[in-house]
């Protein structure tokens, strides 16, 4: 049977389905932004932005752009009722202090032990720029990664050992890719969901670290 990669939209929806009501969540730049766009209006999920906004919502497009209401990607945002503003010191205390229930981040690589590399590819021409990623991964109660299972060149992004500089060691709890949902449990990988039609052997061959499989592996469809 042929298999299809999950769409980004579907990946975001799978993440949303796993976020409990009332959770405090920080969404990283890139793919995780779609999680915010998929949140149903009737659910109270409280979005945190590192620049001190807790309770971020969509920008009011009927008003002119307000530079004092932006997210970390410099995009306009709004405040939902119940929102609060803090300075950077308090905002990062929330992150490092274990108050955020969840952060969803993009990644270059995740290792079989849950090491995360998402801030620098180590290229000589890179300007080192870490932002808030290292604070998020040490503090958030759960760290989810959303990324494609393989690079465009077909290389595994789930690897035995990250070749890129680490953001944090052993920090990732769960990986959502376009092929699978993988939990990091006690330093090893357990698949809890796979796209329809993909075999375990095929998934392992596309993955750079050894996989275990949960008793119940969900079948993921677009």
């Amino acid at each position, binding site marked *: 049977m042929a298999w299809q990669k999950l769409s980004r939209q579907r990946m975001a929806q799978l993440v949303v389905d796993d976020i409990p*009501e*009332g959770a*405090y969540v920080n969404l990283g730049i890139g793919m995780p932004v779609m999680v915010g766009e998929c949140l149903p209006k009737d659910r*109270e999920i*409280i979005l*945190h932005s590192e620049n001190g906004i*807790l*309770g971020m919502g969509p920008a009011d497009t009927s008003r002119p752009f307000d530079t004092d209401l932006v997210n970390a990607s410099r995009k306009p945002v709004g*405040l939902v*009722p*119940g*929102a*609060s*503003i*803090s300075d950077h*010191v*308090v905002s*990062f*205390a*929330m*992150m*490092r*202090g*274990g*108050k*955020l229930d969840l952060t969803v981040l993009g990644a270059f690589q995740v290792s079989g032990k849950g090491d995360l590399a998402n801030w620098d590819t180590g290229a000589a021409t890179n300007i080192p720029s870490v932002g808030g990623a290292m604070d998020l991964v*040490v*503090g958030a109660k759960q760290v989810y990664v959303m990324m494609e299972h393989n690079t465009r060149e077909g290389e595994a992004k789930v690897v035995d050992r990250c070749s890129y500089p680490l953001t944090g060691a052993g920090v990732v709890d769960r990986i959502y890719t376009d092929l699978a949902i993988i939990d990091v449990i006690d330093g090893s990988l357990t698949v809890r969901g796979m796209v329809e039609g993909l075999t375990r052997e095929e998934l392992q061959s596309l993955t750079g670290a050894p996989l275990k499989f949960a008793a119940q592996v969900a079948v993921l469809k677009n």
Partner: protein
Amino acid sequence: MLDKTVATLEEAVSGIADGSTILCGGFAGSGIPTELMCALLNQGAKDLTLVSNNAGNGRLGMGELIAAGRVRKMIASYSRSVDPKNPNAAEFAEAYVAGRIELECVPQGTLAERLRAAGAGMGPFFTPTAYGTQLAEGKETRVIDGVGYVLEQPLKAEYAFIKAHQADRWGNLNYRFAGRNFSPVMCMAATTTIAQVDEIVPLGGIAPEYVMTPGIFVQRVVVVKGAQ
């Protein structure tokens, strides 16, 4: 729907186990969560460690808990009564002199910083306060650029008891004047922060820029009208 309000003081203090550490907001009679402490007296938890700037504000609340032998240890900056003629911490003094309660005396700013370190997810820190004094004895020290520092440890707790002015159902809080004192940092340093408030306002009733404690630091809210 996220709703942190609870209906009664009894519910607010439910589940607090023997041996818990509880941060108690307040300074010099302002911002004292007296009714929460009274509710804890009824709830029955014992072998407690209380963290508070002062060791009581009259008999009600903390004084009663201490008199009832429910407090094993006090962590405070100023445990004496300010005015011996009208003592605010008589029950503590009696228990302390009788050897029934342990005291850890912490400089007031170091107390705030130790709570902040815990709340902000930091490890230990070097502070110049108390260097060269007996309150630094036994602690790691370091001299940097000619200034002496003492290594102090984060101070976290299972619970914080807080008195605030207004709250919404997400737990956003504000405080009146100097009723603020230790409360914001204690909200951050506890796993479960329980706030007694004068009133609940609708979500959005506290302007986002004027929220003094964001709701993420608060787990339970209970209204106490006409609090002490």
